[in-house]
């Protein structure tokens, strides 16, 4: 530490420049991570917050809710397997609605649920729909930003049905569209023009709350279905995988770049100081002492850069417009920080190796 700190102080410009690069990389890493998180919840918060563990879909539906169709008898079979655990149907339909005010079209996703089931969303304003309500809906509060309020009517474009908004929910989106929760009576009414038999209730999935054993039981005992976990179903939301995948790739590359930038910087610095290390070893400095010095320098630079990077990220996130999805919690920051410190230490390994290879004898008989 004695030498490490004095060297940092003496060669300020050099180390400030490298910290600056590190700050920018850390900033970018955190920012992109926050954006990925924000987009993820903007995209699929309805699934993420859903009070269920598994979803039962039609066989061969590719884990996609929207591709699956199940009928009433499947629900009965699943219920036999789940015994005490809850199983409840879920209808998912992407659609477009217009409001009374203007002709502006809004993309929404209908979630048909049993209002008493575990799938009922938390209502933050107004009240919840029930089994007997007719042509009423609770909608995600992001629709408020579009000018809608309680008592307003939205018109379904495909079926022509009109729904009165009786409540607002929060954090209910599916594939970047707000979710409109309705009951199954209304679900039938928006499918009127399709040929559904009176008592054949068709829906997309069955949500199950229960252990893995129950899920396995359904898998083996009920034919024509596949059982996926909640996180698997996220991957099946249109666009979700692609969105998260490209952002994740950016973050991964940033970490690799950070490791290389540090590695190259310290490697060049180490090469420049080879003769010094020879002298230090000759006068009795142990390798462990030299290694501690190098590692403490790397850690000091990384920690300072990270602190500034985190500060910048939060600062900028305050300036972002509301509509921009950005979400960063302490857990994610901690993981990023640990990863960042880890890759910087990885980057210093090459330099450590070179220092270890320096022979003290080089100090003798040489006019440096």
């Amino acid at each position, binding site marked *: 530490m*004695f*030498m490490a700190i*004095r060297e940092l102080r003496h060669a300020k410009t050099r180390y400030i420049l490298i910290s600056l690069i590190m700050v920018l990389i850390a900033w970018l890493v955190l920012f992109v991570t926050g954006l990925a998180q924000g987009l993820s919840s903007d995209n699929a918060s309805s699934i993420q917050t859903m009070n269920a563990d598994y979803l039962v879909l039609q066989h061969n539906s590719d884990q996609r809710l929207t591709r699956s169709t199940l009928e009433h008898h499947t629900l009965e079979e699943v219920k036999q397997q789940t015994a005490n655990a809850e199983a409840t149907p879920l209808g998912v339909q992407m659609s477009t609605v217009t409001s009374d005010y203007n002709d502006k079209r809004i993309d929404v996703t209908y979630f048909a649920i049993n209002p008493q089931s575990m799938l009922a969303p938390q209502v933050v304003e107004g009240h919840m729909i029930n089994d007997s309500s007719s042509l009423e809906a609770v909608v995600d509060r992001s629709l408020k930003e579009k000018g809608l309020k309680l008592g307003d009517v939205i018109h379904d474009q495909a079926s022509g049905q009109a729904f009165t908004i009786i409540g607002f929910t929060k954090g209910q989106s599916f594939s970047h569209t707000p979710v409109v929760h309705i009951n199954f009576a209304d679900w039938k009414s928006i499918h009127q023009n399709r040929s559904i038999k009176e008592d054949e209730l068709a829906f997309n999935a069955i949500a199950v709350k229960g252990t893995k054993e129950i899920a396995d039981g359904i898998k083996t005992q009920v034919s024509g279905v596949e059982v996926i976990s909640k996180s698997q179903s996220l991957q099946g939301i249109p666009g979700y995988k692609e969105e998260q995948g490209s952002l994740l790739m950016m973050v991964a590359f940033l970490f690799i770049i950070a490791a290389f930038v540090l590695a190259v910087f310290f490697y060049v610095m180490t090469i420049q100081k080879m003769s*010094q290390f020879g002298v230090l070893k000759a*006068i*009795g400095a142990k390798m462990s002492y030299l290694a501690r010095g190098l590692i403490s320098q790397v850690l000091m630079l990384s920690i300072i850069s990270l602190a500034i990077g985190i500060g910048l990220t939060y600062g900028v996130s305050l300036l972002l417009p509301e509509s921009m999805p950005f979400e960063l919690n302490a857990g994610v920051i901690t993981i990023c920080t640990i990863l960042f410190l880890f890759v910087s230490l990885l980057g210093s390994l090459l330099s450590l190796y070179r220092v270890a290879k320096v022979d003290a004898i080089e*100090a003798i*008989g*040489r006019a*440096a």
Partner: protein
Amino acid sequence: MSTQLRLDNVSKIYGAEDTSVKVLKDISLEVKAGEFVAIVGPSGSGKSTFLSIAGALLSPTNGTVTIGGQEISRLSSQQLTDIRLQKIGFIFQSANLIPYLTVRDQLILIGELAGMKKSHSKKKATELLSRLGLGHRLHHYPESLSGGERQRVAIARAWMNDPEIILADEPTASLDSERGRDVVHMLADEVKSRGKAAVMVTHDHRMLDLCDRVVHMEDGKLSVS
């Protein structure tokens, strides 16, 4: 007078059997406390190898090396590092100071390595530097010192760990003769007043009158003149 450094029948062979080169051939040398010995000889005669073996940087192929009463020829490289830290003071050709440490910190670093108390090593460093006429330079960096001053810092650094013996590798190589003489004079004075020993490898025949004994090295062999 006690013996500070003793080499008995030391030889050093580099390389494998058929291509081996015998750099040192059965060298014996004894340096007593208070003695300042110069080693002169043409380049390639084995002076650097001699200094490396005496300085615990290299182990001899045959023979024994004793520093301050301790046999070091069979120690591990870890133990040799400790010997260098505790018992040997080095002065290199071109001072070889650490560029980002001030003059006093150069000396405090040795205290750091040896696990000395900070306050103690500060006091000792200041004392040593004042003695060598560098009291006004404590907080300067090596880049702002003259060549002679740098070499004096190197001498002070070599004394910092109270070594049994000082090994100097052409300490005057980068100095003009007047400065060089000053530096060697200081070294000789310190050796006398502390009752320690010093061995200096040099090309510079003008310094030899300051030494107690001159040993010639040629083709890996020592001869006293």
